[in-house]
């Protein structure tokens, strides 16, 4: 009982700090649900008087937001699927197998972990132009497959798996691919879940690369689309916040569904992403 009384001030401080952090999100949803005349009220009202879905109806009718959301799901989804396959394969080889050049290759991968992504922006733009992939979906997806966080994550995890099962499978005549497919992949599920969540979130939220690579607004992912809404609706904050809300909801839902993987991901992989 006394411990609750002692801890109460701590809870109050933490809840206030959490509330402050969450407040912009609350304000975003509140503005999106407010009738226009209340949005520009002096003083603004923190507790709503009246809610409406009118902004949402207008957003879906006047902007390609649905198209942008579908684009984002496709782009982030394809990048995530390829990362799961390729990074678990490479992670397995780097963690468990011996081959000439392995250390040099892994050292090269790790040495680029702290390179700011914008450093490669201009050369990647040139390469995509050379390949004729500017303003195409593959042009956005391919550079997304090159980030090395996943290789590192999978290698670290697969290293901790026992080797006996692999040996046993080989003795039973399993091919190398079967060892990977039927031993390594099932055992790596926890790490694959973390990798999937992190990669999907990263490319759901990606901005500068698609901004530079894509020209056609119908190909935009939702973040680039949102930025163009700002030019279109300028000071119509009701509409801007509604667009932002629609982009926020899927990520928030993913977070609530996979909280454990998010937190685990930070512990394994750090705050990157």
């Amino acid at each position: 009982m006394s411990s609750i009384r002692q801890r109460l001030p701590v809870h109050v401080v933490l809840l206030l700090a959490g509330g402050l952090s969450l407040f912009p999100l609350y304000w975003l949803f509140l503005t999106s649900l407010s009738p226009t005349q209340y949005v520009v009220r002096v003083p603004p009202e923190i507790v709503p008087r009246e809610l409406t879905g009118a902004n949402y109806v207008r957003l879906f009718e006047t902007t390609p937001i649905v198209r942008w959301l579908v684009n984002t799901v496709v782009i982030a989804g394809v990048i995530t699927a390829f990362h799961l396959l390729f990074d678990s394969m490479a992670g397995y080889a780097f963690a468990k197998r011996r081959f000439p050049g392995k250390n040099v290759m892994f050292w090269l991968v790790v040495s680029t972990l702290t390179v700011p992504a914008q450093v490669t922006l201009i050369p990647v733009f040139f390469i995509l132009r050379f390949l004729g992939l500017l303003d195409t979906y593959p042009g956005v997806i391919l550079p997304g497959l090159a980030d090395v966080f996943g290789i590192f994550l999978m290698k670290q995890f697969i290293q901790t798996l026992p080797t006996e099962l692999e040996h046993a499978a080989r003795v039973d005549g399993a091919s190398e691919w079967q060892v990977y497919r039927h031993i390594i992949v099932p055992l790596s599920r926890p790490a694959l879940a973390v990798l999937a969540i992190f990669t999907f979130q990263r490319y759901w939220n990606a901005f500068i690369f698609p901004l530079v690579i894509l020209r056609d607004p119908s190909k935009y992912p939702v973040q680039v689309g949102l930025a163009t809404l700002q030019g279109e609706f300028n000071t119509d904050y009701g509409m801007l916040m509604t667009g932002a809300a629609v982009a926020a909801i899927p990520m928030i839902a993913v977070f609530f569904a996979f909280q454990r993987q998010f937190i685990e991901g930070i512990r394994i992989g750090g705050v990157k992403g």
Partner: protein
Amino acid sequence: MIATAAPRRRRSLAAVLRRYGWSYLFVFPTFSLFVVFTLLPVVQGLVLSLQNARVTGGEFIGLANFEALAADPVFIQAVGNTVLYATVVVAAQITLALVVASLIQPLGPRAHVFYRALFYLPLVNSAILVAMVWRWIFNANPYGLANTALSTVGLGPYLWIGSSDQALIAVILSAVLTIPGGGVVLYSAAMGSLPRELYEAADLDGASPFSKWRHITVPLLRPTTLYLLVIYTILAFQLFERVYIMTNGGGPNNATITIVQLIYSTAFQFGRYGLASAMAVVLFGMALVVAVVQFRSLRSDVEY
């Protein structure tokens, strides 16, 4: 001689492939993508920074791009803004993460789960979306939320993002006012694995909770602190979306111009790829210096 050497080499290549083929096959897809879209671009970025590359091509001009940058007041402003933002924001983030994680630490496991989720939830959204909300909060009108909040204590209204003096302050505040959830999670994890013995010894000496925190917890967390310093500083150096959205990409009189914002506009609005690549090299150098300096000081703490 050549004729006899060739088949032997081919045989040994076949042997290498038989022995290691699967390994290379496993590594090949991701490593080749990494080479084409990360490794080569890093090298090509260095090469481009020495050329006057424009939309129509370019030639080698030595260090002229870097000389031009050193004399360019806008670039110097961008570096200054970026470093100022990084210094203030990273200092605040480390402090807030440490304090919040320390407050969570003595609570029960269910409280841990709850608070970690609470502090991480605001961070799952994109920088674009977050910047849009802050633009709305810091808008110059009296119905802007920041102005209303300050008017209750008799301050303002301020122009915020509409003013060359206050725009960068608004951008910095927008970052500082969010608890860094990733740092909280990492500090919490690190605190959970600190050795109990030191605390028991301190209890015997009658140390206060604060002095235990100050003299045991904080020093033992040094590796986590250094790691977070490196990661948060490098992330802060990449500041772009916030200024792109909050202040239309640079603010009044370039008040909020940053290195990445300037790379973007120099390359993709003005087509001066060589000059922009030189800026990227400077950014790369800054990140490298931070990483090296901070990992050096991490190594030095083995002497403890």
